[in-house]
């Protein structure tokens, strides 16, 4: 598994497509993933943070679902926004989302063979 993170609109997907050579039709959007689950041919999950947000909104445990997805797809490439670098939000739901996503990404980073952070479309390999 590989993890690619960075701020909003930093060219993460473009960077990953270029680096890996994986075609666009092997990319699944996190919101579709939440509905349809994952099939064998999928190489990249984009907008992973929205998957976590959706799970929380629907009262599901994102940690359990993520674990199951990774177990079934050990080669998966995950792209996620980093959302923790701001003022702590007033709304409890928003705070919960930031914390849970942050911890999930820490867990994924630990398991990942490779972690890159993308800034202005440029990848910085941090693991």
């Amino acid at each position: 598994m590989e993890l690619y993170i960075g701020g909003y609109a930093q060219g993460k997907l473009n960077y990953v497509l270029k680096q890996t050579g994986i075609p666009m039709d092997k990319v699944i959007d996190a919101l579709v993933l939440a509905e349809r689950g994952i099939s064998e041919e999928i190489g990249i999950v984009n907008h992973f943070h929205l998957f976590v947000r959706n799970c929380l909104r629907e009262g599901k445990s994102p940690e359990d679902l993520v674990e199951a997805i990774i177990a079934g797809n050990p080669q998966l490439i995950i792209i996620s926004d980093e959302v923790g670098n701001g003022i702590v939000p007033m709304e409890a739901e928003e705070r919960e989302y930031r914390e849970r996503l942050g911890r999930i990404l820490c867990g994924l980073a630990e398991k990942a063979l490779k972690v890159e952070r993308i800034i202005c479309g440029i990848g910085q390999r941090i693991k």
Partner: protein
Amino acid sequence: MMVLITGGSGSGKSAYAEKASVTLAGEGTLYYLATMQVYDEEGRKKIERHQRLRAGKGFQTIEQPVNITEVAAKMEDSRKTVLLECMSNLTANEMFSFSEIKQPDEVVEKIYKGIGLLKEKTDHLLIVTNNVFEDGITYDTATTDYLQALGKINEKLAEFADVVTEVVVGIPVPVKGCPVA
């Protein structure tokens, strides 16, 4: 040695800071300066989580939500490593927990002085701060003043520090010098 550790919410900066503190402390005494004030259940849970993380690592906890200069008198006179967590709480407490809101310059000056004194009294000082600067939202004056103060403090501390490390998804990324753990 002085180490500044930054990162966002849920970035794993606390766990990393503890590991770095234990590494630096060796046989010396290890102190944890807790700055967070508890107002509600969420705060209590947060503190409990941090206490669980720290358990068994040999930290002696000193609660110091404001007036960091008072810490020196509460520590033993031995070799010591101090982990202060975190600067974003300390700054908020200094600014907002007195009868009137303090001016950012005053807060910056007070904290900077306090940290200078603390640094003299310790073998190793590790400070956790918080990257709260990248959400692109324009806030009210009080919050903007707070951001300005914390930004200035971070800038000064980073200049003063031997090592500055950003923690990203639990991974230490060098900003200044070489990460200690």
